[in-house]
């Protein structure tokens, strides 16, 4: 689904360096949380985070039970998107940073596909997603929570219903818009003990109609245009759907050297007019050494599509340089877009230690905008490939044929052949001719 793909394009988010604790954190700690975000398309995104801190040199606590019971491989790999990350960093334990703790943060994000798992139904529950329910908190965890995004998308409130009803809710500004989360704290005895298990259920009160899902303010597409194996064009479409705010984006392209870019063909158009980038950095490729590097700062007008295109020619590689599957094509890595996108709602910088873990995925530097880094889709470009089973035979055969025919035909075409009668009477005739020449009579 669109939203799922967009998420996959969406966020590889900066883990900002701002988490150096001010207060004295506990020496060893484990925090775990699960964020469930129902998407307008009917898919559901689930993000697990486990944060462990321990003293340097000491052993680290490992969780048993708790949220990790949900990590069941065959369900997780039945999803349409899946991303894992591990971050390790030192955390100062005092203001002068004389001693540090270590923090291990493990993240797992999956997007459950409404059509594969739910047979077209758009209601979800923990059991339906993971074929498990939560029964107990992790005994070692200092915090073990489930957050469910219950922000209503439409104009009317209450499109989504969660069951059991949450005891508390949490509000925050995420990526420039206000979000409301239902919070289930597993350490709170009331949450689990009522029915011995927690199976959070989501029900769409009015199922989302089969209409196109809402689009984010900034997204991008990239594709190869043209056909044939000689030349082509890399096109990147940058969409700014904000109704009235223009904002700049930084576009970074690395293109392999075997696509020979023609930089003079670089064109950037917005709303049918040329859009001059305020900054361009270009580092040309060197064959077999380094790729092209192209970096531009482009201002995206409000509510516009900007097309960045550049033509290229496909190079012929040496035949040992081809991959074992040359006809598959060659990958061109995604463009990277970095932008400060205007917020709808002003965000306030939060205290990271107090706020939920997922907050650190969306760092706030400025209340009027939020930082987004997007990766466009990678491209698959075919290069001209020789027929690898043939070269030896063909080279031998053609060389022989050319060698044999060329010389003879060249001779035939450039020379004329005449029969010269063998001379008769060598010496006598020469003498006679000498005399005849002296007499001025035609020679014999």
């Amino acid at each position: 689904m669109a939203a799922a793909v967009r998420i996959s394009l969406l966020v590889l988010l900066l883990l900002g360096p701002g988490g150096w604790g001010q207060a004295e954190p506990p020496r060893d700690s484990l925090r775990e949380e699960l964020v469930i975000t129902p998407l307008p398309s009917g898919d559901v995104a689930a993000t697990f985070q486990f944060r462990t801190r321990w003293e340097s040199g000491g052993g680290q606590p490992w969780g048993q039970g708790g949220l990790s019971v949900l990590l069941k491989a065959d369900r997780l790999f039945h999803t349409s998107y899946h991303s894992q990350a591990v971050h390790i960093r030192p955390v100062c334990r005092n203001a002068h940073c004389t001693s540090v703790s270590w923090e291990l943060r493990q993240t797992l994000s999956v997007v459950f596909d409404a059509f594969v798992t739910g047979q077209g139904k758009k209601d979800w529950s923990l059991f339906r997603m993971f074929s498990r329910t939560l029964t107990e908190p992790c005994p070692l965890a200092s915090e073990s929570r489930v957050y469910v995004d219950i922000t209503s998308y439409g104009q009317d409130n209450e499109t989504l219903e969660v069951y059991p009803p949450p005891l508390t809710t949490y509000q925050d500004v995420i990526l420039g818009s206000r979000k409301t989360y239902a919070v289930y704290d597993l350490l709170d005895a009331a949450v689990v003990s009522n029915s011995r298990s927690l199976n959070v259920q989501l029900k769409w009160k009015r199922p989302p109609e089969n209409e196109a899902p809402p689009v984010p303010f900034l997204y991008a597409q990239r594709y190869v245009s043209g056909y044939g194996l000689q030349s082509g064009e890399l096109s990147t479409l940058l969409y700014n759907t904000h109704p009235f705010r223009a904002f700049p984006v930084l576009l970074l392209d690395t293109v392999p050297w075997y696509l020979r870019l023609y930089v003079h063909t670089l064109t950037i158009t917005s709303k049918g007019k040329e859009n001059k980038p305020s900054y361009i950095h270009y580092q040309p490729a060197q064959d077999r050494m380094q790729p092209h590097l192209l970096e531009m700062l482009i201002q995206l007008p409000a509510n516009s599509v900007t097309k960045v295109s550049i033509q290229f020619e496909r190079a012929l590689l040496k035949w040992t340089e081809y991959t074992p599957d040359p006809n598959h094509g060659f990958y061109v890595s995604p463009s990277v877009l970095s932008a400060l996108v205007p917020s709808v709602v002003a965000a306030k910088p939060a205290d990271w230690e107090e706020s939920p873990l997922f907050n650190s995925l969306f760092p706030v530097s400025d209340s009027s905008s939020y930082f987004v880094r997007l990766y466009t889709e990678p491209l698959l470009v075919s290069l001209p490939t020789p027929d690898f089973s043939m070269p030896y035979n063909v080279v031998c055969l053609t060389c022989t044929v050319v060698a044999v025919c060329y010389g003879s035909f060249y001779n035939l075409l450039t020379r004329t052949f005449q029969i010269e009668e063998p001379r008769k009477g060598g010496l006598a005739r020469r003498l006679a001719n000498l005399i005849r020449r002296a007499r001025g009579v035609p020679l014999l």
Partner: protein
Amino acid sequence: MGLLSDPVRRRALARLVLRLNAPLCVLSYVAGIAWFLALAFPPLTQRTYMSENAMGSTMVEEQFAGGDRARSLARDFAAHRRKSGALPVAWLERTMRSVGLEVYTQSFSRKLPFPDETHERYMVSGINVYGILRAPRAASTESLVLTVPCGPDSTNSQAVGLMLALAAHFRGQIYWAKDIIFLVTEHDLLGTEAWLEAYHDVNVTGMQSSPLQGRAGAIQAAVALELSSDVVTSLDVAVEGLNGQLPNLDLLNLFQTFCQKGGLLCTLQGKLQPQDWTSIDGPLQSVQTLLLMVLQQASGRPHGAHGLFLRYRVEALTLRGINSFRQYKYDLVAVGKALEGMFRKLNHLLERLHQSFFFYLLPALSRFVSIGLYMPAAGFLLLVLGLKALELWMQLHEAGVGPEEAGGTSGSSPPHPPTQGVGLASLMAPLLVSQAMGLAVYILPVLGQHVAAQHFPVAEAEAVVLTLLAIYAAGLALPHNTHWVVSTQAPDRGWMALKLVALIYLALQLACITLTNFSLGFLLAASMVPAAAVTKPSGPRPLYAALLVLTSPAATLLGSLFLWRELQEAPLSLAEGWQLFLAALAQGVLEHHTYGSLLFPLLALGLYPCWLLFWNVLFWK
């Protein structure tokens, strides 16, 4: 090659070529035709085999069971289409979204160069609808296409129904590694062309269309589906694409595999596969199939929506459901299973289809002739032109050397006076004039359609065709008008030089055509070579003239039409044939402008002027 460097042996060889020229030419021509006919027989045809590893050994189990769903979707689609009179875009969008596809539309418009009487359209505008099934956990770098071209009439509803039911089934599976695009195009091939151009962000034919919002990487393969009944008796597969391009043979092998697996009755050119290769019937039937394929490929017309994909290096074929009077019928589930199997195997592809043949002829669904085996047939025919040219060259050369030698070889021609070469000027006039005629045939009909339609009581489309024929016929009057620029000295040497140039010109053209589109090259060679070889200003002129006219490109087209309908067992009457001929001319011109088909410019700018040169030779004064 010492043989040729030695003047004595060279002269002996030259005498041999000159003396045996006629029998050699006849022998070569007969050998060419015989070789071609022999292509349908087992030693020259081979069994097809799957070359692609990724599709050969893997097993798939088809689970499609949405026959009822397909039928009800088809009924809904047909009802909505009847109600709105056009493609029910909103309904399609809604339905595609409800089965879980990412849906986009594309609007396009095209003003044809002149009204298309066959399809009854002139100013065309339409909307294509396509839905993308995103492969889970993949980055949308590769995709497959299932397309259903919808025309103005209410055919192909079942194909849309089956496509949507398949989409719903595919959507629930997690094994997809490539995105799948489900495409419904309006105005059949025009819509397909508009979509393909927009997908590749190029403009080849002057189509105006909105840019595509959604893409899915490099398209690896495409299948076009045409289905107009709830049950089918057989599936016909079409491979011939634009300008005679063919998809990789492995794609056809794949289709054939699933035909066999599902027990489906599959046909090629509407002909069943011959069962018995030992008796004469089997090969005879395969000769028919082969000839049909050659005619189809030579026409350069896309034989289905798949034909337009080939230009973009997307391997594609069209499956056509046939519902005839045969007793045993298959329902949509059987067709759906075959498609599911094909798509699952294409999904396994690691590389583009490239292992198998791109140049082949098909005498039957499971038999093929590779390029190495069919090329000699055309080679023999072109050899005739080479031999004739050699003979002329020698006659011209020896005429310069001495009259007695030339007189000894060709008894009919009188001894030539020894003159210094043939003036190029005398050749330039006929060359330029005939080339200009070709240019007129190419440009004037479309350019002058309004003028013609104003002054004569005909519609634009008729005007184009009639102007075309008029200019074509006017070319025949040329020799009488051009001879005044030709110097009258050494008349024999004049026509010989002209014929020599014409022979080489024809041989080069035919050789080039044969390399890219064997069928067209072979057909033209088979018809044009004999007349080109025998034409000369002396001898039975009316006979030569009749032969030349009968083998001119237009007459070849007419003859091919009759042969085609004869092979399809639907013979034409003369009047029908003429009507079909006029329609084919109009279609040829239209397809050049709308899809970029090359047959019309090839005939108008290449072969017709060349043929006029021979006409000039015949009426040399």
